């Protein structure tokens, strides 16, 4: 939950920039463009998403859930700040399951790594807003995001100096042309990552991810992430369906963007503590934003 901001703000694209940087020029250009696109998407965005997690079995490469999926439904609003729009503010509200309904989290993230992330949690059972202290999140172990197989590390973005990159292959992947980019954590990153290597399949035309693959510290395949239902919304290509398959725990998490609206005006006042406790104000604002859902 520490990186909830990234999770909510740029879920669909943040994976695309996971730790990406480039000493190799063309790779760097690709990542810069993807990173810029992510910030643009997250600036004035509201989305309703469903996060489902289950154990899976497989038969002839076909994977399916073998138990009843755990389902979380969330609504989130985000906005970018700062001269280069690298700071962000976001709020997320849990709608399902019933046991967690009403929990809200407000997070301010800063591009300046010397400045701590600020977050406040509204505990609906207590009816109280609690300030959280998690530092800048840079030195923490990855944790599960909302109990899913996605971890805070999977949701991070902007760690461009902490990896070395290499384009391994170019060519058609399904019906799209892609670059396959390998990311190796530098020593500064190695201590705090679960991964020894990451691979990305980047659409050459749309600058979106089609697939990602991570490897554990022993070099064994760890997680595979598949991006589907890629649609053009407000001139941005977005994957509305992202599935993370954890090959080691045999669990998968699927993230569906049920509804989204982008480039809408979000009042600064909405991204404050008021929204966590002033429900009438919150719902009035959200209802206006929901009218733009796609």
């Amino acid at each position, binding site marked *: 939950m520490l990186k909830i901001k990234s999770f909510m703000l740029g879920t669909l694209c943040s994976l695309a920039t996971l730790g990406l940087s480039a000493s190799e020029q063309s790779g760097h250009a690709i990542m810069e463009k993807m990173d810029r696109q992510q910030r643009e998407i997250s600036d004035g965005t509201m989305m309703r998403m469903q996060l489902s997690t289950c154990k899976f079995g497989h038969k002839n490469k076909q994977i399916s859930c073998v138990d009843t*999926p755990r389902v979380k439904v969330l609504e989130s609003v985000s906005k970018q700040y700062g001269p280069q729009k690298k700071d962000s503010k976001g709020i997320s509200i849990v709608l399902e399951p019933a046991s967690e309904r009403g929990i809200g989290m407000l997070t301010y993230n800063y591009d300046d790594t010397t400045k701590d992330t600020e977050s406040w949690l509204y505990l609906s059972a207590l009816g109280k807003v609690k300030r959280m*202290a998690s530092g800048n999140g840079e030195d923490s172990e990855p944790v599960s995001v909302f109990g899913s197989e996605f971890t805070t590390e999977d949701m991070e973005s902007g760690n461009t100096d902490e990896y070395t990159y290499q384009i391994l292959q170019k060519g058609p992947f399904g019906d799209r042309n892609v670059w396959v980019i390998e990311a190796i954590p530098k020593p500064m990153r190695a201590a705090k990552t679960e991964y020894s290597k990451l691979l990305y399949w980047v659409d050459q035309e749309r600058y979106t991810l089609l697939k990602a693959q991570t490897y554990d510290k022993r070099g064994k395949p760890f997680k595979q992430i598949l991006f589907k239902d890629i649609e053009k919304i407000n001139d941005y290509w977005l994957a509305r369906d992202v599935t993370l398959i954890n*090959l080691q725990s045999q669990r998968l998490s699927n993230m569906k963007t049920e509804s989204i609206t982008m480039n809408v005006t979000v009042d600064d006042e909405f991204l*404050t503590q008021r929204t966590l406790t002033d429900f009438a104000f919150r719902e009035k604002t959200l209802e206006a934003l929901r009218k733009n859902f796609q």
Partner: protein
Amino acid sequence: MKKPSTLHKFTTVTALCCSLAAHADDFLGGDDFAFDSSALEVNESSWTDGFKTALEHSHTQIPGDASREQSSVRVVYEGNVAEGVYLKVDNRYRYFWHNDDLAENRGDAYGHNKLQRAWLQYSRGACSSTLGRQTLIWGTVEGTFVTDIVTPFDYTEQLLTDYGSVRLAQDMLVGECFSSQSQLQVFYTPEARTDIYQHHPLIVDIAPGFPRARLDIDPEEEWGLRYKWLGDGYDLSLMYARLYDNNPTPMLRGNSDAGPSPADIIGGALGQITGDNAIPDGYRVEPALAQFNLVGAASAIAIGRLLLKVEAAYRSEQLIAFSDDTTERYDAAVGFEYTTTSNHIINAGIWGTHLSNDAIAVNDTQVLSLGWRKTFLNDNLVMSLLGNWSSNPRFASATILADYRWNDYWSTAFAISAADLGELGENNPIVAAEESATMSIKYEF
């Protein structure tokens, strides 16, 4: 569902890993696993979305006897009823089985309905107002009651598993105005509810041989305000309130100003313990509630992974039991919460109270608390440890709690407590016994 064997898991993982490795040279081969996500149904919005129902049963066992045996059903509704108008209703019916301590005190099993929340919130411009039964939590240091006394704990509730019910909600009007860096909150309660034992009558033993005194009293209006400043990495609250104490104080009342003082009467009675042991003629025990002014301040400061919390308060006109005298009271609490790099959460706090009247035998009290919390198994298992020590009444307790969520509907909690009751006595609402185990099971939908 049959649990997959270890061999099966190993075979599956090996097959998955090998199939990836075999194609490591050709990244464009399309050797992907296929997952049909359309099998995952999307939860559509429904009129029932605002409702939540919880069924729960809990049992606390102390050596040789059940201590708590309660079942409950709780229904919550919340949602927008018009533009800028929000409604929340939270009702809970509890049944106390015949072997529950509270039922034994009343002589039989019984049921009790509790309307915990029923409020309407209206928001316009920079302000909002909330009218109805609600809770209002001030303060920053958890587990202390320095400034967090507007909606006190309800000691008939299980404190371990359901934090939504442990507060004694008040019928009040709360108004709040917001700016980007501050909040101003005002509340008014026409008739405060201070009976923190609710349907568990508070009866005190004054002294050996004296008739037991029932301490019921109805307070009147309370009001107060809080100003909260939100800075970068910290917040600071200043509070003022006119309140009633949450615990009635037993007082000796006489018919005449002449004669011995209440202290003399008590002292004499304790010395005599005569055959009839009656309170001297013309005097009686009556409950009284202190009405006092609260002035307080609270702050939370985030420094990296450390959250520092500080609170201080002054209370005027505190009653002294069996005395005509009053005292001023000073409270202070300091606490911290630290999240380690491996996401263990450690917290601790110390709360001190000082009564300024030197005639009181013990006028300084300290309470220490220490806690640890960590989530495991994709947030399904929450383990926590809580320790408390109090100097007056002297007691210490430690509780380990495991809360496990089986799926989106079922959850169980299990707690084991050990305590040194010290001066607390056995029939207290805080610690059930020197050893106890609590199990609860909950279904929510």
